[in-house]
């Protein structure tokens, strides 16, 4: 079945089988023959679907099964369910017949968003009538917001935004499809559409009591555009029947039977495995390696070197160059690369840095005048008046994301097309990377999204896609599944920056803080130090000064959920407890009065 692989796009999908959910995904013939648990596959390619779609988000099959395309990635946050709920709310379909499926990032490169999804009323994410509209930047692939006019627009999964930013156009997509299904039934019955109602995938003509189902009119609806889509309005919250209710996650049945397809589970015919070693010092590269030393080890095919990923693919972060050993199985590749002599070109300045030096640099930077973010009252006068001065220094270490699923991607590059199977939080950026590395246009890059075994930001997950694309690009025609070891995953990740805080409070005779000075220092990162500092103070202290200080290190850092917030919560709350202790109070008596 694999000969026409390059003609098709295989997507993880979920299909109905006697009420049970089974994942539809391509599995190799050999494994399939050996696998007692059948893994049926559904080959779905948007250009040749068996059932025509109503719109780009919704396919209704003759048996009323509703496939809802999800443009964000499921990594445990429940987006397969929540995005489907927002669409199904408006579609008014039978929730039990909803099946999520990943949207096509390739199609997103080829098609523009429908005009009717672009004009967002209301006042942003907090307006229930409006709904979120992400602030799209220009067509900047290194930006975080998505692409303003591409079909699925924001395919990133980040910043807790999938619901609040996607809600308006996802609800609208459901509403547009519902209206077209109603119009199709009205056309069939030759009755005014205003006499029809829809509920749980059943359309009823009130005056006659006649009914039909979505499945029976979907083909007609698919052929008939809505004459005035700009007139369609989404429901107000008081009209919701599905949104706001608690529903079981649609993919949990797969996760308790081992059937979820993560990137690491992808198998292709003729696929080879790659184990990699990247230079353990960031900014370093391979000087030479001795493939001859391992050439005869079992299963070993070849070795492939790759450079430091182009910073335009990694939002400016500098990772390392490396080398991959390609073998028939991953364990053979990993065993061989462990024995392969590799010499590195290591930037001496980067190699010289150690934790003590970093601590010293942070301490030096925090002692310098920083950027004053808040300066309220007269802090120095407050300290002069204080009965007690309390001071504290806190530090936080570099933290890796340490997701459970080590970085991996499966890539097939041919001369005119790239296919990537990956759990990825930003397929639009990965599409850009694939094009940049291979020279093949983005319109010919196909990304087959898989579930992620934990995800902490696309760049938090590191240059897994770039490594795999650079390797596969040197082995055109062969699908290569690159998998990092746990150790490589730590080299490939971006870290939450190391941080330092100095806090000083002046307490009056009763123990009340009357002056507070907070100085925090973190590594300046790729997207601006402002993003990394929490400038809010939860506690009201009349005289308050807050300054931020930065330094530079070569470690690639990123947000790791909450940007600098988690470190700053630790600094602030720890210090408030120390102040309570100094005042003779139990810490639970400290109350936030922001």
């Amino acid at each position, binding site marked *: 079945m694999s000969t026409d692989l390059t003609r098709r796009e295989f997507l993880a999908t979920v299909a109905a089988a006697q009420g*049970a959910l089974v994942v539809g995904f391509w*599995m*190799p013939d*050999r*494994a*399939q023959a*050996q*696998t*007692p*648990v*059948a893994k049926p596959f559904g080959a779905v390619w948007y250009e040749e679907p068996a059932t025509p779609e109503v719109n780009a988000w919704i396919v209704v099959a003759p048996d009323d099964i509703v496939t809802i395309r999800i443009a964000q990635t*499921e*990594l*445990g*946050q*429940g987006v397969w369910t929540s995005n489907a709920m927002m669409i199904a709310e408006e579609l008014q379909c039978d929730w039990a017949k909803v099946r999520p499926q990943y949207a096509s990032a390739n199609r997103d490169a080829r098609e523009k968003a429908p005009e009717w999804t672009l004009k967002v009323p209301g006042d942003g994410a907090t307006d229930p009538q409006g709904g979120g509209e992400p602030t799209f930047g220009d067509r900047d692939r290194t930006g975080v917001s998505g692409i303003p006019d591409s079909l699925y627009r924001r395919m990133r999964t980040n910043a807790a935004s999938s619901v609040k930013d996607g809600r308006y156009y996802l609800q609208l997509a459901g509403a547009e499809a519902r209206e077209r299904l109603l119009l199709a039934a009205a056309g069939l019955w030759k009755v005014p559409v205003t006499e029809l109602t829809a509920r749980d995938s059943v359309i009823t003509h009130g005056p006659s009591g006649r009914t039909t189902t979505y499945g029976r009119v979907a083909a007609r609806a698919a052929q008939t555009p809505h004459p005035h889509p700009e007139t369609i309005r989404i429901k107000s919250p008081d009209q919701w029947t599905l949104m706001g209710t608690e529903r*079981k*996650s649609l*993919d*949990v*049945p*797969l*996760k*308790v*039977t*081992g*059937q*979820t*397809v*993560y990137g*690491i*589970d992808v*198998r292709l015919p003729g696929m080879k495995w790659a184990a990699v070693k990247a230079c353990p010092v960031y900014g370093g590269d391979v000087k030479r390696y001795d493939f001859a030393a391992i050439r005869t080890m*079992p299963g070993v095919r070849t070795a492939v070197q790759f450079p430091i990923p182009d910073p335009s693919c990694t939002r400016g972060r500098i990772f390392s160059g490396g080398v991959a050993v390609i073998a028939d*199985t*991953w*364990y053979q590749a990993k065993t061989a690369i462990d024995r392969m002599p590799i010499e590195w070109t290591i930037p001496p300045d980067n190699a010289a840095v150690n934790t003590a030096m970093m601590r010293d640099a942070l301490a030096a930077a925090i002692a310098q005048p920083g950027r004053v973010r808040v300066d309220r009252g007269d802090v120095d006068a407050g300290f002069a008046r204080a009965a007690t001065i309390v001071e504290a220094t806190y530090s936080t270490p570099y933290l890796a994301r*340490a*997701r*459970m*699923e*080590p970085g991996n991607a499966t890539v097939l590059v041919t001369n005119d097309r790239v296919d990537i199977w990956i759990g990825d939080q930003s397929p639009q950026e990965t599409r850009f990377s694939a094009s940049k590395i291979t020279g093949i246009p983005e319109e010919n890059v196909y990304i087959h999204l898989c*579930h*992620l*075994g*934990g*995800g902490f930001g696309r760049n938090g997950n590191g240059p897994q896609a770039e490594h795999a694309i650079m390797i596969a690009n040197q082995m055109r025609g062969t699908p290569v599944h690159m*998998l990092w*070891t*746990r150790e490589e995953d730590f080299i490939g990740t971006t870290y939450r920056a190391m941080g330092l805080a100095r806090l000083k409070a002046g307490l009056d005779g009763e123990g009340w803080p009357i002056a507070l000075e907070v100085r925090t220092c973190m590594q300046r990162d790729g997207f601006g130090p402002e993003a990394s500092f929490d400038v809010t103070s939860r506690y009201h202290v009349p005289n308050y000064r807050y300054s931020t200080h930065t330094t530079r290190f070569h470690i690639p850092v990123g947000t790791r959920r909450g940007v600098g917030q988690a470190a700053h919560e630790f600094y602030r709350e720890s210090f408030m407890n120390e102040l309570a202790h100094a005042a003779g109070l139990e810490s639970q008596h400290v109350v936030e009065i922001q």
Partner: protein
Amino acid sequence: MAFDLTVNGRVYRVDADPQTPLLWIIRDHVGLTGTKFSCGIGQCGACTVHVDGRAIRSCSVAASTAVGKSILTIEGVSADGSHPIQVAWKEFDTPQCGYCQSGMIMAALALLHDRPRPTDADIDARVTNACRCGTYHRVRKAIHLAADLMRK
């Protein structure tokens, strides 16, 4: 070198180095991918399977040690999710990303076979798998529910 392994009641002829960790034989030769690779050093438990009823971390055990024994993976618990432990897991929407959950379920199932009414202390001692999403509280509830369901 070819050897036979019994996985989920079925015998597989495997042609591989018998010193290969059992995890990779299960995933890449037998073709069952529900068992997961994460740390590779027997620490996190994502690769947990049963060998003769005992929960082991398959990334750190040579396949040769399982020859002639009965191996159970998540796929063998029940394919349709009808085993009480899976029913209990679904009841609380226990998994988030789900990557650790195969191993989590296998560790819990071994515990329940040994101690049909486990205490929280039993769970703490025997289910030491890592979950990066932090589902531990639901795992605990699901184990207690599974214990109830399995007694019925």
